[in-house]
């Protein structure tokens, strides 16, 4: 320490205290964190791309999976995700307005804009929770074959998807759920589907207008890009390969198709949702600091700018998740 030349500290490049990149230490470290975090997300998305390219001809079609809007019935692909995207961009705007107001030392404006940002973030996290719940619950149900392929059902006349509930027969069954108090070991079985394989099979055979949709995507011709629909004869043959009834989604299997699809959905949107959640928490802390006048006393609002960077980053990641999960 005592050997440090103290005169002309501003000009001394290695003496510390000067900022060759024009950014303060804290802001620069926030940026470097963002760079490394963006590499983590890129890794996930690249892995998603890897699995998707690997199963190019059988990957689920996002438009057929995410079709719900809260409080509305019917088939509205993408509308709700578009709304979520807009909410996040909007909260990014209020954040950048808060930063701008901070530069001008307008405490009240910063408070209001931060508040709106937090509300936007909360709406987004809530929407994502709803999206997850809908995804986990599923809507049509499917049958899984020995090889882990998913068979879905369609009405041959209307060309619309048919839910298991619409055709499965009710067969009185003695099979009851295995609870942990009756077993040798304290193990219960996971929740059983609403219909047994037998009920689905018999219902399918009894209903002549039903056919099977397989995972395979048609590669050329008029119907390129759509899922393959079998004829009634082929379907009757194919249904014999069914081994399991699948309703909704979990980390092992899902009714939408490739198992990896649900895994990546939970992992990537979950990791992003966790970022949004922590972003809301950090925003809350800074919000209270602004309300208490901490930055007014400090003389600058750089902390607002730093959390702002993190918040915009969350928005930035969502833009990519939106594209690769819902659009492409």
């Amino acid at each position, binding site marked *: 320490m005592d050997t440090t030349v103290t005169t002309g500290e501003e000009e001394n490049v290695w003496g510390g205290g000067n900022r060759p990149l024009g950014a303060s230490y804290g802001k620069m470290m926030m940026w470097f964190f963002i*760079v490394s975090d963006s590499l983590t997300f890129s890794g996930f998305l690249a892995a998603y791309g890897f699995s998707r390219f690997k199963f190019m001809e059988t990957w689920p079609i996002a438009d057929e999976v995410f079709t719900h809007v809260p409080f509305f019935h019917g088939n509205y*692909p*993408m509308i709700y995700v578009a709304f979520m995207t807009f909410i996040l961009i909007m909260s990014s705007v209020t954040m950048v307005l808060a930063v701008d107001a901070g530069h001008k030392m307008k405490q009240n404006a910063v408070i209001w804009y931060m508040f709106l940002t937090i509300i936007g973030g909360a709406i987004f996290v809530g929407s994502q929770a709803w999206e997850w719940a809908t995804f986990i619950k599923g809507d049509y149900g499917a049958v899984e074959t020995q090889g882990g392929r998913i068979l879905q059902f369609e009405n041959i006349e209307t060309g619309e998807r048919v839910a298991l509930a619409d055709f499965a027969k009710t067969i009185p069954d003695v099979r009851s759920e295995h609870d942990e108090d009756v077993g040798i070991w304290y193990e219960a079985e996971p929740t059983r589907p609403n219909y047994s394989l037998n009920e689905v099979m018999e219902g399918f055979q009894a209903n002549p207008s039903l056919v099977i949709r397989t995972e395979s995507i048609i590669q050329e011709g008029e119907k390129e*890009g759509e899922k393959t629909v079998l004829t009634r004869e082929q379907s009757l043959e194919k249904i014999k390969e069914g081994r399991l009834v699948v309703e909704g989604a979990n980390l092992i299997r899902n009714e939408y198709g490739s198992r990896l699809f649900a895994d990546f959905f939970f992992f990537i949107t979950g990791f992003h949702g966790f970022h949004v959640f922590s972003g809301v928490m950090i925003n809350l802390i800074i919000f209270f600091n602004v309300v208490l006048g901490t930055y007014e006393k400090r003389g600058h609002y750089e902390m607002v700018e730093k959390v702002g960077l993190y918040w915009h980053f969350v928005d930035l990641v969502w833009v990519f998740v939106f594209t690769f999960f819902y659009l492409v």
Partner: protein
Amino acid sequence: MAHEHKLAIFRGALKFKSNTQKIWGVLIFLTLVTGVEVALGIIKPRVLTHTYILGMKALNWIFIILTLVKAYYIAWDFMHLRDERSAFRRAIVWTPIFLVLYLVFILLFEADYIYNVYKEGFIKWNF
């Protein structure tokens, strides 16, 4: 802290009077781009889904390019990279771009190879 803001976007074609105005301008632009993406995603024009450029559907190329456009304006105007020193900006931007392109190239190439193995090799997976 960069107190002075550069107020022109689209390479100077559009100039704003204040930073606040620029923020709203960028919001309108981002919303428009998202709107176009969603509209294309719902309509899925046949011309775009049946034309392939470099092995990928033209529609997907459009989505990816529009996403990069959106990312650019979020980073440049919301995260005000536009106002940072160019050395700082380049350190932040080019490092991930280089690493991500490298990773994506390797993974997608390998995945395509595995796809062909599944397709043409003697592995039965569809049963």
